[in-house]
C-alpha cells in the first residue's frame, strides 16, 4: 500500500477511482461540482464500490480498491476521509466474515489498520486510558437540576462513579486474530462518531451485516418474513456471510450503531425496519450465552422500536377562540364576499 502516494484532492481521488473501477462508475461523477460530496452521497458510486468490495477474492494485498481507500483516507481532505468511512460497514462486514475462514486479506487489513490508527491518534495522549463515562449522582446539583438543600451541606460530595465505555487502544502494526474484534470495534466507534454525516445506504449495509454476523437470521421465527424469501434469488452468486465471533468489544459498538439506525433523527422507515431486524438478531445471539448486559441492551432497543414517538404538540386554540370562530368566520366571509 505504501507505494501509493496519498491522494491530495477530491478530483484526483475520483480519477484514480475511475481508473480502478472503469465502467462501473457512473459518468456523472466526473462532472460533479463537488467530487468529494459525490463520492460520499452518490448511490451509483456506493453500489459500484460496495459490490467490488463484496466480490469473491477481494481484499487481497493487491486489491487496487483497498489501495484507493487507504490512499484516500491518508489524504488531508476531511471530505475524502468521510467518503472512506462511508464504506466501513461493507469493509468490516466482509472482512470479519472472511477472516473467520482465515483467508489472506492484507488489503482489507491495511485499510482497517489505517482507520484504527486514526482512531488511536484521535484519542491522542489518552489512547492508553479507557474512554470513560462519569455517572451523575443526583444528590449533587448539575447543570440541569438543583440538588435538594439537604444534600449541599454534606461536604463530601460523592465522587461520581466512573464506567468504561471503550477500553484503551493500543497501537497495532498487524491484525492479530485475538485482537481483531477490538480493532474492528474501534473502527466502528470511529464510524459511530460520524454517523450523522453518513448516507442512508451505508447504514443499511451495516444493519445487513449485523444480521449476518449474528448467525441468527435463519431462526425459524424469522421465516415468515418476506425479506428473507427473495434474498437467495436476488443475491444468487453472492457469498453467504458467515457468523462471526462477537465478543463485547465488537458487540457493543455494533449495537450503538444499530441504536442510531433505529432511533436516530430523520431515519427512513426502511432503515428502521432493517435496524429492528438487526436488533432482534443480536438479541437472539445475546441469549445464546445469556450475557446479561447484551440481553438488557438489545431488549431495550427492541422495546423502544415498538413504542410510538410522542408527537410535537399542536397549537391549541383556547375555548374563547372556539366560541368566536363562527363569528370571525362570518366576518371573514363578509369581507371576502363584499369584494366579489
Amino acid at each position, binding site marked *: 500500500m505504501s507505494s501509493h502516494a496519498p491522494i491530495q484532492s477530491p478530483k484526483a481521488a475520483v480519477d484514480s477511482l475511475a481508473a480502478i473501477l472503469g465502467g462501473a462508475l457512473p459518468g456523472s461523477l466526473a462532472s460533479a461540482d463537488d467530487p468529494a460530496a459525490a463520492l460520499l452521497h452518490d448511490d451509483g458510486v456506493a453500489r459500484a464500490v460496495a459490490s467490488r468490495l463484496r466480490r469473491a477474492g477481494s481484499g487481497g494485498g493487491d486489491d487496487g480498491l483497498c489501495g484507493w481507500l487507504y490512499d484516500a483516507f491518508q489524504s488531508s481532505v476531511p471530505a475524502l476521509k468521510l467518503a472512506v468511512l462511508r464504506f466501513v460497514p461493507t469493509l468490516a462486514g466482509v472482512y470479519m466474515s472472511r*477472516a*473467520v475462514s*482465515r483467508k489472506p486479506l492484507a488489503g482489507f487489513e491495511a485499510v482497517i489498520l489505517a482507520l484504527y490508527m486514526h482512531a488511536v491518534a484521535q484519542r491522542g495522549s489518552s489512547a492508553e486510558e479507557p474512554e470513560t*463515562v*462519569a*455517572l*451523575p449522582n443526583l444528590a*449533587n*446539583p*448539575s*447543570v*440541569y*437540576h438543583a440538588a435538594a438543600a439537604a444534600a449541599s451541606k454534606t461536604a463530601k*460530595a460523592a465522587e461520581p462513579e466512573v*464506567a468504561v*465505555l471503550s477500553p484503551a487502544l493500543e497501537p497495532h502494526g498487524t491484525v*492479530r*486474530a*485475538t*485482537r481483531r474484534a477490538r480493532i474492528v470495534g474501534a473502527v466502528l466507534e470511529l464510524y*459511530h462518531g*460520524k454517523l*450523522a454525516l453518513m448516507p442512508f445506504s451505508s447504514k443499511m449495509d451495516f444493519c445487513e451485516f449485523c444480521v449476518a454476523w449474528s*448467525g441468527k437470521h435463519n431462526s425459524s421465527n424469522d421465516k415468515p418474513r418476506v425479506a428473507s424469501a427473495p434474498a437467495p434469488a436476488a443475491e444468487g452468486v453472492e457469498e453467504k456471510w458467515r457468523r462471526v*465471533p462477537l465478543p463485547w468489544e465488537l458487540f*457493543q459498538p455494533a449495537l450503538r450503531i444499530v*441504536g*442510531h439506525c433505529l*432511533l436516530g*433523527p*430523520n431515519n427512513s422507515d426502511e432503515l428502521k425496519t432493517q435496524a429492528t431486524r438487526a436488533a432482534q438478531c443480536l438479541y*437472539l445471539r445475546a*441469549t*445464546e*450465552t*445469556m450475557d*446479561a*448486559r447484551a*440481553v*438488557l*441492551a438489545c*431488549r*431495550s*432497543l427492541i422495546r*423502544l422500536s415498538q413504542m410510538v414517538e410522542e408527537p*410535537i404538540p*399542536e*397549537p391549541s386554540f*383556547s375555548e374563547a*377562540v372556539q366560541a368566536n370562530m363562527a*363569528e370571525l*368566520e*362570518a*366576518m371573514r366571509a*363578509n*369581507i*371576502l*364576499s363584499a*369584494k*366579489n
Partner: protein
Amino acid sequence: MAAAAEWENGSDAGPNGDSAMFASPVKARARAPESEAGTSAVTASESSEARVDDGNIQEAESSLREGLSLNYEEARALLGRLEYQRGNVEAALRVFDGIDLQAAIQRFQPSLSEKTSSKRNNKLRSDSSNSGSQHAASLVLEAIYLKSMSLHKLGKPMEAAQQCKSVLDAVESIFQRGIPDVMVEQKLQETVSKSVELLPELWKQAGAYQESLASYRRALLSQWNLDDECCRRIQKRFAVFLLYGGVEASPPSLASQTEGSFVPKNNLEEAILLLMILLKKWYLGKTHWDPSVMEHLTFALSLCGETSVLAKHLEEVLPGIYPRTERWYSLALCYSAASDNEAALNLLKKSLNRNETPNDINALLLAAKICSSDYFLASEGVEYARRAVTNAESSDGHFKSVALHFVGSCLANKSKISSSDHQRSLLQAEALKSLSEALSLDRHNPDLIFDMGVEYAEQRNMHAALKCAKQFIDSTGGSVAKGWRLLSLVLSAQQRYSEAEVVTDAALDETTKWEQGHLLRIRAKLKVAQSLPMEAVEAYRTLLALVQAQRKTYGSVKNGKEEADKVSEFEVWQGLANLYASLSYWRDADVCLQKAKALKTYSATTLHAEGDMHEVRAQTHDALAAYLNALSTEVDHVPSKVSIGALLSKQGPKYLPVARSFLSDALRLEPTNRTAWFFLGQVHKHDGRLADAADCFQAASMLEESDPVESLRHL
C-alpha cells in the same frame, strides 16, 4: 406603544386578560361594515376559500383594521390564525408573510422594559398597560409561531426553524430578565413553551444537528418558565438525540455552569444525567410515567456495563408499573451482569416459584446460566435448564439449543463433584448427549463445540476432543485464545508435544504481548514434559518477565476481573520451584519457594512442594507435617492427599488402610489422577489383593498416556 394604546382604546378591555382579547373582535363586529352576515355568506366564504389571494388578504386585513381598530400586524395575525385553524396552511402562510416581527417587537419592547424597571413604583398601572401590550405581543408572536408550524407542515423545516427561532429571540429581547412566573399572560406563555419545544425538532428535521443541540440546551438552560410536562418532553427528546444522534457534541459551555455542579463531559454522560433527572421527577410525582425513559437508561447503562446503578433505578420504580416477575427478571439481569450471581439467583427463584411464572423461559435460562458457573449449583442448574428445554419445545430451535447447552454444562459440572464412579460416568454420558443434541439444533455455535471438546478431553476421549478443538479454531478464525489453549493441551495429552508447541507458537503469534501469559505457561510445561529443563527454565523466565512487567504497569489499577485473566507471579515461582526440585537443585528450588511464599503465605501448593522436598531428602516426618498443613489450608487439596497416601503406603503394613483411604479420597475428587491410581495399586499389592492392584495399575498406565500438561480447568 401607540399600537398598544390604540388596542386598549378600541376594545374596552378590562385589565384581566384572555376573555377581553377574544371578546373584542366580536363586539367590534357590530361596527364592521356590511354586517348582514347569514348562511349565504358562509357558503360564499367556502367557495372563495380556494382562491384566497394576496388581494383578498389585503382587503380583509384592511377591513379588520378599520373595523376593530387593530394595527396591521394584529389584523394579519388574527386572520392567519383563522386560516391555520381551518387547515388552510398555505393561505395562513401567505397571511403571516406580511407580518414584520421586528417592527412589532420594537413597539412592544419599551413598554415592557419600562414596566420591569418601574414595577415596584406603580404596580397597578403598569399591570394594566402591560397586559395590553402583552395581548398584542402575544398575538403577533403566536402568529409567527403558527407561521413556523405552517412551514413545518409544508415540509420546509429550515425556514420553519428560522421563524421559530425569531419567536424565541423576540421573547428574549422583550423579557430581558427571563419570563416572570406570574406576570405573563397564559396565551403568551403557551406560545413561548410551544416554540421552545418546537425549535430543536425543526433544526433536527432540517438536518442542522449542531443548531438542534444548541437549541435543546437553550430550552433547558434559559428561563422560559416551562411547565413540568413540557420540560419532560424536551429533556427526553434531548436525551434521545444525544444517545442516538450520531453527532459529536461539545459539552455544555462554561457559562451555564455554577460552581460545584456536575457538568457532563460527553453525549452519553449528558444523556444519562437527563434520563436520571426524568426518572426522579417521576418519583416525585411531577410528571407522567414514560416507559421509554427507563428503556433508554437501560440501553445507556448496559453499554457502559453499569448495571448495578441501573438496578438501583429499577428498584426505585414504584409498584404497579412493571409486573413483579418482570421486574425480578430485569433486576436479575442487572445483578448477573454486575457479577452478583447470588442476588440474581435469589430473584430468579422468586420469579420461578410455582405461584409466579414457573415456566418463563428467559428466567429459566438465566438461572441455568448462573448455576452453570458454580459446581455446587450444578444440580439446581440441571433442573432449571431441563425445565427450559421443556418450555422451549413449542418455540423454535434456538432457545431449545441454548437450554440443552446449559443442561450439558451443568451436568458436566455435576459429574465433577459426584461421589460415585458409576454416577459420574452416567452424568458424563448424559452431558455429552445434551451437548450434541444442542449442536444438532445450532450447527454453527462455536461455544457448543468448545464445551464438547473440553468434555471429551475430561473423559479422556482425546481423539474426539482434538476434532472439536480444531473445529472451534476454524469457526472462530483463531480469534479466541482459549481455543488455542485447548488444542495445545489436547495435543499434549496425546503426547504430541512438538505439535503442541507449534500450536502454542502459532497462538503466541496471534496474541498481543500482555495476553500471552497462559500460553507461555503452557509452553514452559510442555518443555518440562519433554524433559528439556534448560528450555523450560528459559520459558519460565520469559513468563516471569511478562508477569512482573504487568504488575508494574497495572499495579495500581488492578481489579478483580483482570486478575482472573492473568497468570500470577506466585504460580510462576511455584512452577519454577517444582522444576528445580525435579532436577534436584534444592537450593534453587528453595529460593523459588520462598519467593512464592512471600507472595502468598498460606498456600496448599507451596506447602505441598515443601513437603515434596522434605520427602526427597528422606525427612519423612517433616514431609508428612507439611502435607498435613497443606491439607488444613485446603481441605480438598488432591496432590497432598495423594502424597500422604503414597508416603504412608511405604511405611509398612499397619499404615496401609490409612493410605488407602487417603488415596481413594483423592480419586473421588480427581478420578483421572494417575499417581493416585498407581499408589492405590501399590497398597492393594502390599495387602495381597493382586487383581485389584492390577486394575489400578492398568488405570494408571492408561491415564499416563492421556494427561494434558495442565488441568483443563484452567481454560
